[in-house]
């Protein structure tokens, strides 16, 4: 198995080198060359526009997939309410369904959830698939997997989206393996390939250093989990109606073997910064708990939530539920104000959905400025008090 260059077709354009996730393709004297770092992943083959790349990687045939129709959103709930990510997925799923010319459908699995069908209809669902059973009141991996597998086999959707929540990332891989489906984790962007109708699933890899677009050519439904907080929720349209389709729930005893013994909530709960409209965030540059006191004053003046970097959490200046970034929360406020934050890739990953970003940092080369709408090169301890004064003046 290998990849090689057909020299008479190669223009040295470099698309293959750009596409290679392993830096294994180099351009020398206007010709591409495959180095020994090649893992034969095949990413270059799809990128070449000049038929200058060949391989003996065998491709499996693509079967007729036209029988699979509909964009399904797994509507995750908590205590009988939709999670925000479910709403975000309805927005995104609606856009994809329109592009495909297919129906947006919602899937509800749980107990006593039928009242949510109207809300899902108002968010764009044409159909709501409902599996309602007291045994599904609490999440259980194997029970939810069986119910969803039955639904998918009965109705053959083209796309299934789930939130990349702890539940979604426990359930989706199990389900995808049961039905032998492809699955892309933690997507931040979705689209449709106009030619093939394939779902284009874009996600960060290598700790956010690279974005990869992934597709699932030969099986349906195409499954993806989507990072919470990244997609925009739709405008609700009151009065819209959806057809409710009830799924018979058939479970085995072995699906319910896992026993939940206890749940200890985190002590410092009560904020969900992913929903905040305005956020004032601080990093190491705020230096201390007192420094964060100054930020808290600004946050209060602006009606904002306080948040910060991992450093701020590790130093104990804020609680872990207020950490933004790859290992924290993804936020999409109208306004994000970064104070004394360098903007490491892992932090930036969590703020890109913000509508406006203000960055205050005394280092003009800080990476945070690369994503800022308003850049202030300056000292937090001078600029923030001046902002407080200006805000009070403007009031």
């Amino acid at each position, binding site marked *: 198995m290998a990849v090689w260059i057909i020299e008479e077709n190669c223009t040295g354009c470099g698309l293959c080198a750009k596409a290679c996730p392993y830096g294994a393709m180099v351009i020398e004297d206007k010709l591409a060359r495959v180095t020994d770092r090649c893992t034969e992943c095949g990413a270059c083959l799809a990128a070449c526009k000049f038929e200058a790349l060949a391989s003996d990687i065998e491709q499996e045939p693509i079967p007729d997939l036209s029988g699979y129709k509909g964009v399904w959103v797994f509507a995750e709930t908590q205590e009988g309410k939709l999670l925000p990510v479910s709403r975000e997925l309805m927005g995104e799923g609606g856009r994809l369904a329109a592009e495909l010319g297919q129906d947006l459908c919602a899937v509800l699995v749980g107990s006593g959830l039928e009242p949510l069908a109207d809300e899902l209809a108002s968010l764009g669902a044409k159909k709501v698939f409902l599996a309602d059973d007291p045994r599904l009141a609490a999440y259980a991996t194997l029970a939810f997997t069986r119910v969803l597998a039955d639904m998918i086999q009965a109705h053959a959707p083209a796309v299934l989206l789930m939130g990349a929540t702890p539940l979604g990332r426990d359930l989706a891989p*199990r389900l*995808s393996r049961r039905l032998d489906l492809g699955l892309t984790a933690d997507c931040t962007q979705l689209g449709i390939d106009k030619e093939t109708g394939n779902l284009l699933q874009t996600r960060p890899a290598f700790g956010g*250093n690279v974005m990869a677009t992934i597709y699932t050519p030969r099986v349906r439904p195409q499954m993806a989990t989507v990072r919470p907080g990244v997609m925009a929720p739709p405008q609700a349209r009151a009065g819209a109606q959806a057809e409710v389709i009830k799924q018979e729930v058939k479970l085995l005893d072995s699906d319910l073997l896992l026993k939940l013994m206890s749940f200890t909530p985190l002590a410092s709960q009560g904020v969900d910064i992913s929903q905040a409209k305005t956020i004032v965030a601080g990093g190491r540059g705020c230096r201390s708990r007192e420094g964060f006191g100054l930020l808290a004053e600004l946050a209060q003046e602006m009606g904002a939530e306080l948040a910060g970097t991992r450093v701020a959490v590790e130093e104990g200046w804020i609680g872990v539920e207020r950490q933004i970034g790859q290992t924290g929360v993804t936020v999409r406020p109208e306004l994000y104000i970064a104070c004394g934050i360098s903007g490491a890739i892992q932090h930036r990953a969590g703020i890109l959905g913000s509508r406006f970003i203000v960055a205050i940092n005394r280092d003009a080369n800080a990476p945070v400025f690369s994503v800022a709408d308003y850049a202030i090169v300056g000292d937090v301890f001078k600029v923030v008090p001046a902002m407080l004064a200006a805000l009070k003046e403007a009031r």
Partner: protein
Amino acid sequence: MNIAVLVKQVPDTNEIKLDPKTGTLIREGVESIMNPDDRLGLETALMLKDAHGAKVTVISMGPPQAIDVITEAMAMGADGGVLLSDRNFAGADTWATSYTLGKALEKLLAETRLDLVIAGRQAIDGDTAQIGPQVAEHLGWPQVTYVSELKLEDGSLRAWRKLPGGVEEVVCPLPAVVTVLDAPQDPRWAMVDRLLWACGPKSPIRVWDAADIEAPAKSTGLRGSLTQVMQTFSPKSERKTDWIEGTAEEQARHLVNALSQRNLI
């Protein structure tokens, strides 16, 4: 008690940078390490071995140099290791990876009983967190994800799952697959005498290829993958940055004006 631990060799993503000109990853000089979550999974297994006596076998799929993470794991205290290496395994997505690991576990199961498989929650190169649940499905065993502490009881395990909102305690019958993101103590150090043993002629490390685990080419590597990479690119921002100059007071006033014009405050 027999435990298998899945370990992956990954590039240290903290050190990975993009070449600003070509937009490709610079991997030169980037160290390969044992995936951090897998190190915690191994520590979890070794703690069970300390408490109950267990045979711990590590399994890794990767190129020949991935044997380094196996010898390291054995130097930390694992009893045996299996490297799954074959040209046909290259380019695998999570379906094909879990299939290959699953076939290897089946082969181990034909040799001996297995009570528990431990995987890391996620690998830092892909961050998918899919392999654990997919291997569990391959075996038809229950799964417990996001585990930070594990205890064995009569024929079952008690696990504490670290979730964003709090900690969940569950009991699950064995055999089972567990994915871990933390451990009650820091992973132990490798021991030199064990390392010499693991690298020496008496090393119990085995290397299996596709034929050994009876994995057909159409189900492994790139060919067996259900997802394909279409393109990779560096993350870009489309924002136009307004650099606000002046004294702190001037900057603050300018900003507050701009924000209120946009109805943001």
